[in-house]
């Protein structure tokens, strides 16, 4: 399953004596896959986005699992451990079991991410803001991400928190299923999230519970659907260029 993927994209050729580059976890700048580690978010079959008709591409049998970086183990390195310790300590003081609150901790590309169970999000955010050892005063808003194939965790809300006091940046990630797209609002903790949450609602349909006025912000009020979900088409029309028809962007061949 991994051999086909490696061809032509990593440029090393693939002699029999070489290790399979897709299984090489230490390799940097490799396409697609990182061995079997990480969290699978999707399994992709075939190539070029072709999913109907006979397989004329020759890639129809290709199966590739898309994996995001998985949970990290201690020590996380640098100030990450300090923040994690302080957060866990502060949660314990509030009679919360850290393992019930923090689903997993990911350290990737020099960034620290806490995956928080959604019901605990406001408490965690308030702790991160107010605890003197944490002091993440500034929230840079929320970014929605849609993983339609990640069943039960389709919608993600990603928050970046900045501590000016300690000069640190962390990321919180919360997920909700498509069938119940509710995530507690953080407007009470970070009023700046007012518009950001409206934007994430507008584009992804994430319902931020407790938001004072969760209405559309970019799209017209009577708009149907949530445009930045993956199943929502981009739209567009074919354009003629130098005699050829160039299809709309979402109709073009996809190499992903």
């Amino acid at each position: 399953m991994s051999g086909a993927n490696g061809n032509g994209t990593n440029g090393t050729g693939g002699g029999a004596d070489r290790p399979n580059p897709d299984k090489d976890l230490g390799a940097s700048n490799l396409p697609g896959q990182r061995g079997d580690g990480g969290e699978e978010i999707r399994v992709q079959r075939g190539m070029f986005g072709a999913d109907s008709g006979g397989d004329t591409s020759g890639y129809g049998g290709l199966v590739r699992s898309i994996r995001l970086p998985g949970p990290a183990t201690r020590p996380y390195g640098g100030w990450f451990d300090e923040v994690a310790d302080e957060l866990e300590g502060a949660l314990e003081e509030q009679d919360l079991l850290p393992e019930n609150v923090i689903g997993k901790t990911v350290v990737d590309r020099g960034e620290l991410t806490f995956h928080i169970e959604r019901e605990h999000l406001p408490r965690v955010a308030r702790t991160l803001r107010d605890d003197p050892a944490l002091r993440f005063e500034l929230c840079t808003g929320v970014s929605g991400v849609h993983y339609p194939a990640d069943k039960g965790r389709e919608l993600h809300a990603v928050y970046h928190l900045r501590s000016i006091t300690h000069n640190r940046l962390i990321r919180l990630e919360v997920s909700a299923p498509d069938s119940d797209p509710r995530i507690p609002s953080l407007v009470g903790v970070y009023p700046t999230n007012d518009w950001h949450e409206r934007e994430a609602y507008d584009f992804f349909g994430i319902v931020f519970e407790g938001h004072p006025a969760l209405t559309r912000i970019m799209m017209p009020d009577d708009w149907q659907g949530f445009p930045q979900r993956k199943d929502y088409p981009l739209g567009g029309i074919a354009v003629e260029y130098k005699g050829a028809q160039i299809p709309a962007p979402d109709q073009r061949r996809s190499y992903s």
Partner: protein
Amino acid sequence: MSTQSASARETTEGTVYTVTGGDWDEVVQTAAKADDERIVVNMGPQHPSTHGVLRLILEIEGETVTEARCGIGYLHTGIEKNLEYRTWTQGTTFVTRMDYLTSFFNETAYCLAVEKLLGIEDQVPDRATIIRVLLMELNRLSSHLVCIATGGMELGATTIMIYGFRDRELILDLYELITGLRMNHAFIRPGGLAQDLPPGAVDHIREFVKKMQKNLPEYDKLATGNPIFKARMQDVGHLDLTGCMALGATGPILRSAGLPHDLRKAQPYCGYETYDFDVPTTDTADAYGRFLIRLEEMRQSLAIVEQCLDRLQPGPVMVTDKKIAWPAQLALGPDGLGNSLDHIKKIMGTSMEALIHHFKLVTEGFRVPPGQAYAAVESPKGELGVHAVSDGGTRPYRVHYRDPSFTNLQAMAAMCEGGQVADVIVAVASIDPVMGGVDR
């Protein structure tokens, strides 16, 4: 009542007056006659003093604004969604159009995020990084100039507008020389730059710096001590530090509240830690303070531009990784920027492998390992953050822009409520929102 300037019509919400210019007193008088004292004034989205297609909804009592709200979204173009249907390299062409007055910041932030995802931050050549800084600081100048110029115009100070656009024109000429375009450059690319500086660019920039050093004090002479200017700006659009932190306001708004927070100092990127510059602050927390900060930041930017010029050494402007860097040195042809003729000769005539490689890299693009990254730069308006997610494909899975204009504009209500109608214009101008960035 019904006059030419304010026709009335009955709706389910009460009497609605459509003001089309003319005598404001008439409207106020008529409104005073009505039983309902609550007046809701809609300003924009097509109004010259609302900074683009911003709609303000003001509830007023006499001349006092009791409630203020923004209506945005009139310039929403779905750039973030569009990015998901193009290659990573094509992304710069889109993001440069978000906040169209800070193109180079959008491009740099995007490229820093992509480079972080690729893990090639250390491989970007020095020359490319220095030129990025150079362009960003020129961009800071041109953005602040527009802010001061249009801000002045909205106050009725047309001289300062003429001055501002005069000096911005000099910078746009430099952009045109360097990138071929005055706006929407798509010049900074993942891995480096589209191409090197053209011959003579350094001399042109040095000449500009000299000219600008002469022109900058004119703003001081014209506005800083001007009693009318001060009367309109001082203690207007007040937002203290607590308000800034709660509302996420960054940039000149935050610094006018006295906190010297600047990402170039706090979390340096592109080697900003090696440049010599100051972060100006004031403690007035008002529109005048923000004006002074922008003036001083322009001086600092000019100093950074000079330092960049002194540092420039010949060298590559793109990573050496042939799987990321486009294979050709680009050249300016009759139909715009494209592959150099030499390169086309080579791939079409002598090397089939080079042709295949070129074709695949340009049509498919490069793959980016799965994961997410956040890169932030200090744009003229504040923290410009990019949250980029890759699923290992040749296109971004998701790119989100945390645009400072969007976040800062939320502070409009806090700055305007309780103040005068005329001060709304000043407060909004001091936020310096650009709707291209707000709506994306």
